[in-house]
């Protein structure tokens, strides 16, 4: 039993699987982005090279930083994402409810942002602190819509909050995305995960050209490698989450495998397209967008779901 749990956690669908798939999808992101800009793009294993090279580099730590927080934050972020990946992956691949339900995952995703904020602000660097503040505001912006997005499958499935029950409901009654409320929630959901992953146009906390990677500015060496890996792991976690909540999960037999890959890639490609066609917006614009447009839209989705549409 323990060996089995550890296998899930460290190999599949947890750390190793999510990490490797994340780095590969990260390559896809870089390649497609390159095509958008008429460049060639990196070779397929570039992200792996980057990661291992960073592991071998020197770690520079600010003298006055709160060192334990500075060091633990990226590793804790990595642990949180691995945990989410395991919970979501077990639901998706094994149809198994494990360790936590939707509220737990919702709060764990917030925990990752907490790690970014704590890590960033532990250094005392002005850019990091500004970035940390923006990370928090961005979380507030997308969280309201994100909660409403979560509610749609909950309401649709008859108030179940466990992933396996939501999948079960969809296997019997068709995917949530097949209904008007599901479509609305799915669209808002894509925007939310774009913000949760701080991808353009919501890369406000990092804003390379403005505040120099924000919270990650003082990071280098292995710790930076973990932050980068964390970022790529989210390319797996959040699309999988949407697949569970709205697309009825994966059916990994015969032609189902092709469908599974297509479902996943469809979400990733939409995200990459949004990423490459939008400039960065200001944080107040993001707040306004999510609170005044996206959340009411998602709320309409919830009302429709309550009415059974």
């Amino acid at each position, binding site marked *: 039993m323990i060996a089995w749990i550890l296998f899930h956690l460290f190999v599949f669908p947890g750390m190793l699987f999510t990490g490797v798939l994340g780095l590969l999808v990260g390559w896809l992101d870089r390649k497609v982005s390159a095509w958008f800009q008429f460049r060639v793009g990196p070779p397929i294993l570039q992200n792996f090279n980057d990661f291992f090279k960073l592991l071998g580099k020197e*770690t520079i730590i600010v003298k006055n930083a709160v060192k334990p927080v500075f060091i633990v934050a990226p590793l804790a972020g990595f642990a949180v994402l691995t945990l989410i990946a395991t919970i979501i992956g077990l639901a998706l691949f094994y149809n198994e409810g494990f360790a936590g339900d*939707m509220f*737990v995952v919702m*709060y764990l995703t917030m925990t990752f942002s907490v790690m970014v904020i704590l890590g960033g602000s532990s*250094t005392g660097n002005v850019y990091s602190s500004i970035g940390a503040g923006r990370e928090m505001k961005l*979380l507030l912006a997308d969280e309201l819509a994100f909660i409403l997005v979560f509610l749609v499958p909950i309401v649709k499935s008859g*108030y179940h909050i466990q992933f396996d029950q939501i999948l079960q409901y969809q296997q019997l009654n068709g995917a949530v995305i097949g209904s008007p409320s599901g479509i609305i929630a799915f669209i808002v959901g894509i925007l939310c995960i774009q913000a949760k992953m701080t991808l353009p146009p919501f890369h406000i906390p990092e804003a390379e050209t403005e505040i120099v990677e924000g919270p990650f500015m003082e990071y280098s060496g292995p710790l930076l490698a973990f932050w980068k890996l964390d970022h790529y792991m989210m390319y797996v976690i959040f699309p999988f989450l949407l697949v569970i909540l709205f697309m009825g999960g994966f059916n990994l037999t015969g032609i189902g495998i092709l469908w599974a890959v297509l479902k996943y890639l469809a979400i990733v490609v939409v995200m990459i397209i949004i990423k490459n066609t939008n400039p960065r917006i200001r944080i*107040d614009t993001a707040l306004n967008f999510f609170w005044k447009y996206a959340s009411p839209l998602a709320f309409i989705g919830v009302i429709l779901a*309550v009415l059974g549409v």
Partner: protein
Amino acid sequence: MQINDLTLLVSVPIVVAIVNLFLPVILRKILNFLALIYLLVLNIQILQAGMGTVVLFGQTIMQVDALSAFISLFIQILSFIILIFALKGVDKSIEKAFLVLYPLTVGFCNGVVFSTNSISLLIFWGLTGITLYLFALLGNTSDTPNSAKKTMIIVGGSDVFLILGLILVWFMNPIGSWQLFGEAIPLKGLMAYIAFFGLLIAAFAKAGSFPLHSWVPDFSKDSPVESAAFLPASLDKLLGIYLLARIVLSIFKLTTVMHLVIITLGALTVIIAVMMAMIQHNGRKLLGYHAVSQVGYMIMGVGSGSVIALIGGLFHLLNNTIYKSNLFLALGSVEKKTGTNNLEQMGGLGTKMPLTFLFALIGALAISGIPPFNGFFSKWMIYQGMLELAKNASPGYKIWLLICLVLAVFGSALTLASFMKFIHAIFLGRRPENLDNIEEAPANQWISTGILAVLCIVFGLWAMQLPIKQFILPVVNEYGLAIPDMLGYYNPILILLLFGSVLLLGLIIYWSIRKVRYDEIYLGGMEALEHFRVMGTEFYKEIRNMSPLKAIYNGAEKKYFDVYDVSSKCSFSITRFFKAIHNGQLQLYNLWIVLGVLILLWVVL
């Protein structure tokens, strides 16, 4: 009246307080400490025995049941832990008075919790209000008199409603005695509603819920920090929510609409208070607003009518007393070292006060509902209760309940936001140069916050096995409520173990390959000057300035939404009118007399 454990629980602290009046400070501390240990032992005995009564003049005054036993247990636990903090470091000028008021408050609170008789409940309730006022007067800021007055008027004024409610309950009581908690009265007719709302106002004012919350932030800002952790953060919460639980469980049988009204008030409390907390620049005021906002969850849980949510609400009450007093005390430690509670003047203390930082961080994560700490567990149960209610409601109620649920969940994201600001402003970010020589707080202070932090973790990991099973399920059983199945699934220990093993792996990897160099902050080659310091207080300026929130915030800062200010303005304008017509001129008085006679004639004829 015979002497038993129950009478001792009330009388011992009162006697200690009286004896303390004549002792030197050091003996007062020792006596308080010993008395609280004794009370703790007594209370555990009472909890285990589960019975005990006090009879006076042939009337049952006090009685033990599951709810009162566990609430009073937490009164003793919290009082004991906060007393450890107060052993060293209380302002010398107020220390003597503080050590007299402290056991007095404990005794009165015990009296409230065990009273089953309207009159004794009322007396003890009023006395706790008076000690609250006296604690408020111990502050040493320029606003202290105003805050104390405000506290007295809101909390004391709500006692009027309590009296009204209790008298009406006596009228409606089928047995016609002053015994409360007999048979629940159905909520039918005007009298029942007036009585219900009277009692509700008293509970809300004590717990500090919207719209009677405004004394909590002011009290927190201006009174001594120990008393802020002691009363509004823990004991008053316990009393207020205790009364609310009695109202909804024993005194009245609520209708669905009334449950919904209470849930809505709870959700509004959560969101309004947390929005105010976010923009505060004063650390104590920030925590004070959170003390209000957390009440919202408890009210939602206890008043909802769902058993899962009831368990969650009572559990949240315990959790809140633990982490909120932890945070107040941690801020108190910092304040005593730096001499300020203004968040703008602090920063980077995490390296100087590592233990205080660690415990405050645990408290902050717990209050924000980060798994696996205790705050998440109780919130998670309350959310499930809301969903369970929504499941069986009609579509209109469904949407209403879901809105309340969304507000509550979003409220906890906002809580996280304001605590990230709090932690950043005090412990992280850049340290101002004048704080370079700060040292860790004295041992008694970090032991006190440390115990509370450990409780946060223990109650989070073994929530089902320890607090819920030991304290809350007996209450549910006593009221004959069926314990329902959970909707969700959450295993905190597993989550912590998995998280910990991955974190450990990461640390091992980092440790084995690290090559560390220490350097200054990098600012693109510029010198890192003091004015490049980001204060966490500015984090949410965009939200403050967003329309339409800006107008609301401006209104709130002018106190347009403060019941106390609005009603005092109303009463002042009425007195101004009377002042204007009493100007001392004989002709005018004659005119009034003539007018009065005319009106009298018109009425009589």
